[in-house]
């Protein structure tokens, strides 16, 4: 295996970090929603978004390996779950 000499891996790591930051912002907004409207579902959604942000910010292997499918799937599921919680909060 050849080690990554270009910037592709770094760009991908930065994209993960941006996604993590976006997830963190959504988690904070959901937390505010829960505190404002006393909605427990919003707290659960905020927890899922926080988990997604944590996984997205977790360091990836700094080489040519693409990220395992499990990580992509897990983050997708967590964001979807967070969105479902948001819909439930808005509907209540």
């Amino acid at each position: 295996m050849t080690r990554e000499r270009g910037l592709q891996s770094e760009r991908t790591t930065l994209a993960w970090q941006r996604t993590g930051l976006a997830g963190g912002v959504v988690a904070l907004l959901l937390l505010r929603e829960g505190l404002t409207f006393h909605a427990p579902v919003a707290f659960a959604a905020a927890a899922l978004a926080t988990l997604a942000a944590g996984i997205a910010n977790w360091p990836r292997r700094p080489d040519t390996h693409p990220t395992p499918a499990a990580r992509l799937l897990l983050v997708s599921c967590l964001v979807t779950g967070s969105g479902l919680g948001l819909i439930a909060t808005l509907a209540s």
Partner: protein
Amino acid sequence: MTVPPGASDALAPTYRGTGEQWPGRPDPPRLMISRPRWQDEGEEPDYRFSLANERTFLGWLRTALALMAGAIAVSQLVPEMGLAGGRTVLGAALATAGTALPAVAYRRWARYQRAMRHGQPLPPSPMLLVVAAAGTVLGLLILGLLAIAGFR
């Protein structure tokens, strides 16, 4: 590693992690989530293409998160517009779009990765068109609500 003839199953742990096949035993069950079966098909594409596909997936994920943030902002910050419940409908529409996007983005990533492994052209994706159309509809909805609020 050679397996002694007539060896019992008790020796099976010896072979764990060695990458060698335990004769006469089926392959251990694999977790489809950790490594989908299609990742063993075809050939590993150029890592630059795989990483570009991954970044595109992340771009869609951020779009979903932005839609969700927009939904929360609408529900918390925007004053009630012309129609009663208009704000809720708008927020729910944004939240629904943000909820659906990650699943679609993962499926799209997997389809593209599979196509690259088989050396096939990337399959067409209607995602851009759908999201653009949904954004236009939402924009028109906002304009309509503002117009109704202005006339009152």
